[in-house]
């Protein structure tokens, strides 16, 4: 069985600093101390909005591409999105489980679990065997997530969210706390708004986070684009002549507000068929993408 004891040399230094550091860590994957050098915890709600998803994919992808390890809790929502965004750009990621090391929780994310391991990532837990996740194991897990990292990024969080527990650990351990602003009308922006009010650093682009790591003299730009995984955005291959005025206007409109097809029909007062065709070409060209019925400018 793969274990690391607190007295071992390979035990992550940052984690050792916290007052209630786990004495024993179980892990899966190839242990490489390098992975713990620069870590960012990404946490947030399970009930992510499409806005949160989009922002998380974009920012985390960019941050991970600059060589920072992304640490999260493998839960669905923000956690899973952060893991996936990292893998997509060929970055390294660590998943800290709230259950025994032999369990996959939630079990339907087995594909993601395997992908993390295949790409040189790590699965960690302080619980052994097939210990079931319980209400109290989640906050315990959260302290490890916060403890492993120089900083924590909260993407979306409700007022009483488990992510705020991680945020509190981060503050307690005197690490850096980042939060992403969200619309005030959103339930899952209340937690992040509160954190920002209390002094968390606001993040509006990936640079805000990466610069924090760059201030460390040891941190060099470690990013080398890995071969074969491809860029995040689809590349234009062939121009399909998308330069009609309606398409331009739709693009302008979507830059201001992400809406669905019906809203566009009403806004431009043209037939649904024309809007449909215009949206299709914009999608094919990779200018916009769709999530849950709404269109976003890439």
């Amino acid at each position, binding site marked *: 069985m793969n274990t690391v004891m607190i007295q071992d040399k390979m035990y992550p230094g940052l984690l050792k600093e916290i007052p209630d550091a786990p004495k024993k860590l179980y892990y899966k994957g190839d242990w490489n101390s390098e992975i713990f050098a620069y870590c960012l915890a990404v946490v947030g709600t399970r009930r992510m909005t499409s806005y949160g998803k989009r922002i998380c994919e974009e920012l985390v992808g960019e941050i991970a591409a600059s060589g920072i390890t992304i640490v999260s809790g493998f839960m669905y929502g923000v956690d899973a999105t952060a893991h996936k965004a990292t893998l997509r750009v060929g970055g390294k990621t660590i998943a800290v489980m709230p259950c025994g090391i032999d369990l996959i929780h939630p079990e*339907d994310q087995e594909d993601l679990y395997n992908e993390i391991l295949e790409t040189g990532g790590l699965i960690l837990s302080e619980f052994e065997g097939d210990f079931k996740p319980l209400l109290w194991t989640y906050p315990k897990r959260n302290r490890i997530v916060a403890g492993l990292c120089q900083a924590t990024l909260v993407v979306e969080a409700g007022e009483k969210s488990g992510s705020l527990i991680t945020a509190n650990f981060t503050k307690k351990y005197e690490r850096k706390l980042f939060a992403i602003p969200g619309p005030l009308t959103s339930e899952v922006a209340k937690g992040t708004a509160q954190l920002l009010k209390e002094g968390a650093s606001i993040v509006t682009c990936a640079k805000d986070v990466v610069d924090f790591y760059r201030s460390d003299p040891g941190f060099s730009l470690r990013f080398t684009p890995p071969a074969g995984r491809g860029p995040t955005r689809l590349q234009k291959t062939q121009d399909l002549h998308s330069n009609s005025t309606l398409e331009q206007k739709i693009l302008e409109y979507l830059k201001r507000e992400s809406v669905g097809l019906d809203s566009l029909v009403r806004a431009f*007062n043209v037939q*649904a*068929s024309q809007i449909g065709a215009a949206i299709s070409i914009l999608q094919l060209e990779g200018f916009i993408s769709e999530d849950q019925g709404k269109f976003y400018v890439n």
Partner: protein
Amino acid sequence: MLIKVQSAANSGLEAIGVDVEVSVSNRGLPGFDIVGLAGKAVEESKERVRAAIGNSRMEFPQRKITVNLAPADILKEGSFYDLPIAVGIMASVLQYEVPKDSLFFGELSLDGSLRHTKGAVLMALFAKEQGLGNIFVPFPSANEAAIIKGVNVYAIENLSQLAGFLLGKTALQPIVYEEHVEHVEDIEFDMAEVLGQEYAKRAIEIAAAGAHNILMIGSPGSGKTMLARALPGILPRLNEGESLEVTKLYSVAGSMPPQGSLITTRPFRSPHHTISQIGLIGGGSKPQPGEVSLAHRGVLFLDEFNEFPRSVLESLRQPVEDGVLTISRARERVTYPCRFMLVASSNPCPCGYLGHSKKPCICSPREVKKYRKRASGPILDRIDLHVDVPEVDIAKFAENQKASSLSEPSSAIRERIAVVRQKQAVRFKGEHIFTNGEMKNSHIKKYAKLSREAELILTRAGIQYQLSARSYMKLIKISRTIADLADVEYIERNHALEALQYRSKAYELD
């Protein structure tokens, strides 16, 4: 003495002649027997006939009566042999001549009157084919039988009236078919009443124009059911041949009302999701048409698609593909047509609010996955158009008055669709199909010609969205209908582009 009365039995939509032979003998003990593989309802006919004759102030012969239903090797089911049996027995008492070229059909009531009996139109059609000039049917079913021209339909109210006529004492005129004009109010919901949903409305219009199957996904209250119910109002009316097909099916199923006339509006069937396989497909020891056949030439609407048992949905595969259905049972095999448009609606997740802008979804991704998996993949694959029906923001809607100018009434859409359907009928002449939705790959190659630009777009989309060959073909079919709506022969760039919006996006979710 031996009396022969002609009647018929139906097997599916086919009718088979049945001779009702009545022997009234002076020898032997008085009694009443029916032979010739009679089912339960026919056995019971004895008691009805006895009481009905007695209550019509006629004498029931106290002799040995044997009724034979020939040919004797087909199972006889149903209550409509009452009348021919009674006519035979009465003949032995009243000594009238049973008219040769006539068919008798109908169920008796104990007081001697005749009741509405299913299958009248089929019997009339059989009489016509066999060259029988007259058919005697119960009064409530007479109008239905009179749909068939070229046969004298006599509407019989009770046994005394019939006896008077057969004895030549009273006159009886064949009835004249009366069409009940009912298609004035066949528009239950007008498309103009559906708030917003411009995109879904357009999808419905395309589906109606090409008879494509369509799936609508949206949160509760967004208008999926209303859109589906508005469909019959925009579909063109049934033509004469189609009307007769539908009427026959309804007659056999016993769904024709008394005094019913030819069905001219397209059927709209929306079975509840607790329906059994037999209920949907049809069956029984005497196979009856199921919902798929009752939706023939119309719409089969499956609301809450994911709630239907998987086995029930799977059984739809072949009917959706073939448009006819053969039900085989130990004793018989019948074929019913079932060329319908499948309209399915579903919530995006168990709670219904996934992707809703106001209400949070309370389902875990696992529950959502499980819910989506419940819909049968092969069936989803046979649905051409997949469309999201988002919630309507009423407040936003009121602000924007422009919207109302865009919504068209159903009557205008119906006219447009009728033209497009006509165009398809001409195109597919001699191909045994009528609509774009029915096109097979060979038809697509022949009739759905893509312009170079359209082809470029579909190929590009195929690569980008990793479309299967079948999905690709579906896109061409939809493009064909969109081009038809625009009244052009070649599928152009914009038609292909619009069609892309109706592809299934379910498999792109991660």
